[in-house]
């Protein structure tokens, strides 16, 4: 799949933002006044900024509001509802903390649950697609949620929790890569099932000499040797470096900032790979994914 920068930025930043809102919502930490203002500025900046970035990849932005209508069937629609209601609830919770030094946990817990639900809905947009076997596995929601919780714990200063979630994130991500490499074969789609022709089938002539929307969007090839290097970079930056910094050194603002930046860089690389390595079955009609 084509790794569109807008969607990668969206899922990385908003994931961390909603993770931070989750921890603020459940009261770890309970904040008020100026400190609360800075925390919520970061959280809403990341969450809303990410959501805005995702609007940029729409072909027809004026109809974006209609995406709230199909919550009964569409994960993308549910994501919209969870995000907007979650941000409104957390907005009210934040307003009371910042200006009235009042913490209403009913609001906080509701907002925290909606924040996590948003991240889960985002992950299900990808995990539901049978056409992309690498995404169509339970570990997909697993790493979206663990990435969000790790980022949230890191940003909210819950050091021990952050270390635990960063380790879980690393483990789930490695599992997702390992399982993902087998998923296309497990799904069982081949050029023979795609064409229903008997014998050894290969593409003889494409429908057209140039590219089209499908080949551009869904048949993106990443060099395998780069993929392995990028996986190593992702796991080091996203999980190993922040854990080492948090465990080996005393807690300090500069150190925490380095850990957060390393985490974000790692998640960017991991999300890029999430798209770049995903093989869509339609590629079979274009001669992609040929067996050796």
């Amino acid at each position, binding site marked *: 799949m084509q790794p569109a920068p807008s969607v990668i930025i969206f899922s990385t930043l908003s994931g961390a933002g909603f993770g931070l809102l989750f921890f603020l919502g459940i009261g770890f930490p309970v904040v008020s006044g100026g400190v609360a203002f800075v925390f919520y500025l970061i959280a809403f900046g990341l969450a809303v900024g990410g959501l805005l970035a995702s609007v940029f990849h729409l072909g027809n932005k004026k109809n974006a509001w*209609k995406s709230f209508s199909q919550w009964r069937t569409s994960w993308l629609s549910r994501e919209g509802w969870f995000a907007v209601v979650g941000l409104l609830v957390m907005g009210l919770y934040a307003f009371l903390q910042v200006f009235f030094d009042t913490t209403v946990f009913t609001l906080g817990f509701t907002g925290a649950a909606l924040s996590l639900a948003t991240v889960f809905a985002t992950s299900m947009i990808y995990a539901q697609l*049978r056409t992309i076997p690498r995404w169509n596995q339970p570990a997909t929601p697993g790493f979206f949620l663990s990435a969000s919780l790790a980022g949230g714990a890191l940003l909210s200063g819950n050091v021990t929790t952050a270390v635990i979630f960063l380790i879980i994130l690393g483990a789930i991500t490695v599992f997702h890569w390992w399982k993902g490499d087998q998923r296309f074969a497990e799904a069982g789609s081949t050029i023979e099932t795609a064409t229903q022709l008997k014998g050894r089938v290969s593409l003889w*002539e494409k429908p057209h000499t140039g590219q*089209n929307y499908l080949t551009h969007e869904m048949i993106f090839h990443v060099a395998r040797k780069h993929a392995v290097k990028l996986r190593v970079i992702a796991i080091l930056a996203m999980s190993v470096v922040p854990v080492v910094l948090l465990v080996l050194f005393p807690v300090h603002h500069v150190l925490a900032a380095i850990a957060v930046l390393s985490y974000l860089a790692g998640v960017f690389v991991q999300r890029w790979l999430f798209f770049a390595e995903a093989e869509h*079955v339609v590629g079979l009609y274009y001669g992609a994914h040929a067996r050796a």
Partner: protein
Amino acid sequence: MTALPATTARKLGLVIDLDTCVGCHACVTACKGWNTQNYGAPLSDQDAYGDASGTFLNRIHSFQVQPEPVNDVPQLAQTTHFPKSCLHCEDAPCVTVCPTGASYKRAEDGIVLVNEDACMGCGLCAWACPYGAREMDQAAGVMKKCTLCVDRIYNENLEEIDRQPACVRTCPAGARHFGDLADPDSHVSKLVAERGGLDLMPEQGTKPVNQYLPPRPRDTIQPVMSGDEDILAPFLAPVAEEPKGFLAWVDRALEKL
């Protein structure tokens, strides 16, 4: 709502005969011609005289099929031309993922359509389709797909003979057939029963309505004649099996080097 109808009264669709298709792309041209100037946004092209790309609702792929050896005798590869457009699936995954309600499957005839006035161009339906049947128009920013020429098949302003999809009407080989696949007595259902119509990618669970008729088995070639029955055979025998004279000497000399 983008929920799928539990059942549809009819299942209008295409039956495509892979034995008959000659790969002329007439259906591609007819489809683009009709659909770029009728329902919805036109089917735009980008950089048509350079690095061209554009929106098509129907495309022809061509595959080479290498049959397995028969009695250890290698078989020649065959070419199959493979037209592909929306299969109007019963369990259409493109419909349920749509967040705006723009994608829908009609309960009355099973046609899968996009209401372009509600489409926000997120492209998720195209991701959900295993067949590559949906393409986002790069000029209009909305999703385009085969409408089964819904603006022809019910159009009483057209002659009755023209009330079928443009691709079917134009096919010079008669490789495309249009009809109701829910009716066991329709000509398309009979074709499917007679020729063993097949679902594409059944493992994706989409239950496509469109059916593909596989290429017929190849004719068996007559056994080679032994010679006795053919009075001309002696004249076709090789004239000289071994070289003679000067050439034979050259041959022997070169062998000894």
